[in-house]
């Protein structure tokens, strides 16, 4: 194998193709494509999706359209031994859905306690202020994993979908230089 062929970059490849269900059939899409097509989620509820997307967009603007919720949700639907989530590497105890559900519930509960509304209903500047608080210490009304750790994991997910892809590298002007491009379905 020459270094040129090893460095072949596939334009348009993003996170890699994950399995989504469209019209009863399983298809391979990137999370951005799944988000753009408005596919329903498999694991997270509408409230959980709203909280996750609002959090992701606060942590890294653009993460929502990059398919953050569809990425996390699809990964929550697979066996933990096949998961690509950062939570796996950080030692979160499976099932990982419990971690996300508890963290997102904590986010909404503490937001209600502080501001009277769910996190996704806060104005953008208030969301940023609130995230700065939960990053540093667990706020009143929070339950679930410690809020600084939940911040760290969620921020990592947002960075994954936005920057950890061929598209993301291009945004930063970094050549991706893959040996094996991330389109393979595992």
């Amino acid at each position: 194998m020459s270094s040129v062929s090893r460095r072949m970059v596939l334009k348009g490849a993003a996170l890699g193709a994950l399995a989504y269900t469209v019209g009863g059939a399983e298809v391979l899409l990137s999370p951005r494509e799944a988000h753009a097509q408005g596919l329903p989620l498999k694991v997270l509820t509408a409230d959980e999706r709203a909280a996750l997307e609002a959090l992701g967009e606060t942590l890294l603007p653009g993460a929502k359209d990059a398919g953050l919720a569809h990425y996390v949700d699809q990964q929550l639907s697979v066996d933990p031994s096949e998961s690509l989530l950062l939570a796996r590497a950080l030692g979160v105890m499976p099932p990982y859905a419990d971690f996300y559900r508890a963290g997102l519930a904590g986010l909404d509960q503490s937001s209600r306690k502080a501001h009277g509304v769910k996190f996704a209903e806060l104005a953008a500047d208030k969301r940023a202020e609130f995230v700065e608080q939960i990053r540093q210490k667990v706020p009143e009304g929070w339950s679930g994993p410690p809020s600084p750790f939940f911040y760290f994991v969620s921020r990592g997910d947002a960075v994954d979908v936005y920057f950890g892809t061929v598209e993301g590298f291009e945004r930063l002007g970094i050549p991706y230089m893959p040996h094996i491009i991330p389109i393979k379905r595992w």
Partner: protein
Amino acid sequence: MASAKVDVVIVGGGASGILLAAKLGQAGKKVVILEMGPPLGLDDLVSSQIWSRRLKWGGVPVVSEGKNPVAHNFQSGWGLGGAAMHQFANWPRFHPEDFRVRTQYGRGLDWPISYADLRPYYDRIQKEVGLSGDHVAEVWRPAGDPYPMPPIRWFKQAELLAEGFRKVGMRTAPMPLAINSVSYNGRPACIYDGWCEAGCPTGALVNPQVTYLPIAKKAGVEIRTDAYVTRVLVNAKGDRASGVEYYDKARERREQHADVVVLSAFSASNPRILLNSVNDKHPQGLANSSGLVGHYVAAHITFSAFAMFEENTENHMGTSGAFGMSQDGYVKDSHPGFGSYTWTIGVAMKPNDVLGFANSRPQLFGSALHDFMKRASRGLARIGVQAEELPSAENRVVLSDRKDAYGFPLARVIHSLDENSMQLFNHIRAEGDRIVKATRAKETWTNPSPGLAHFLGGTVMGKSAKDSVADGYGRTHDVGNLFITGGGLFPTIAGVHPTFTLHALTLRTADYMAKNWGAIAV
């Protein structure tokens, strides 16, 4: 259901298990490896930090507790090849004093072997698998054969950081890496794409898939993946291991009988298997007359300091292992906080994942994170440390109240850094701050708290069953045909990365087993 008896059953298809299997297979032994994870191949090594997580632990959960919990999942591996599939390939040797810390300094533990015992195996391993480095520039290096390859190429980041070391009066040298700087033994040279942590499919980086696995297969070693070992079985008298119990992919209970049993799983898994192998002859677990199975777990104390340069640091180029090193802090009692440490100088970085650009400034989010990522992708540079944690019996693997699908307790790892470790960390942090500030970077910062890398100890070697689980060959004191390999044997962990020493130690065990087979397998 029992399979036909073999000479050796090895639990765990990681670096040490595959190396041992290859050597024993070549010696004519019938060997079976039971690997808990899936059958990975080189074409599974997708170039992506996201997809690299498939190489991290995916087995039964490990409960991690304590003031400073070990990063078990990040350090361990999943699938054939184990943790070595995502290793960074920093391969310095331990120093002679690392083997006699108790004798020389009155602290920690001694190894039952010396550097002189292990040196021939370091030399053999580096010749067999290939190491790049500069033995002359590496002034701290103990006696050993020159590296078979020249050092890897340095990119701008390393030069800019090395200038900081020089300005504070510290010496630097190329890091010895288990990565080809030129083609070696039919494997190509590195092309510096920085995907080492995601697994190197080109063969430039030493991982079991390109080193000892092909040899093992050629020697007739049988490898069964998706084989989850739960216990070591013993004979009626309880003084000999007779094989292992495991569950296959279909969740069928099976037994594999063998003349010799070797535990080569990860450092949390070997103690768990021994502690779960209780019977009336071994009420506190197998090979545990010392009561020390699970104890003396240790990890390297890690630290990073960052510099943001106006120059292009070319930080997307290179290897996950470091370009350079400094061991001017290696003398254990020459600074506040006892213990050795090694500086690592510059690594290839990616935007995401645990060690990516974004997590060098974890407090940033929103538009500030976007701005930072743009600057980091051009100008970020990093130095790091691997520092020695002294062994403490309080840091340990015990059985959890939680159980797996078959009713066996999970491993529960309890780990905290003591006051000495924190003193050492604070010294390192201050030194790292001086180094990055001495560079020409306009902006520098340091990690405020220690991290942990590697996961060692838990089945330590020593001279007797009073103070250890196994002898200098990894043979358990209590059960003569039961061996342990891997980092779990390390009584002390030195101030360097462990993988080279793990290989050398395993090769020594392989030699011993082959030469003394009649006495072991009786």
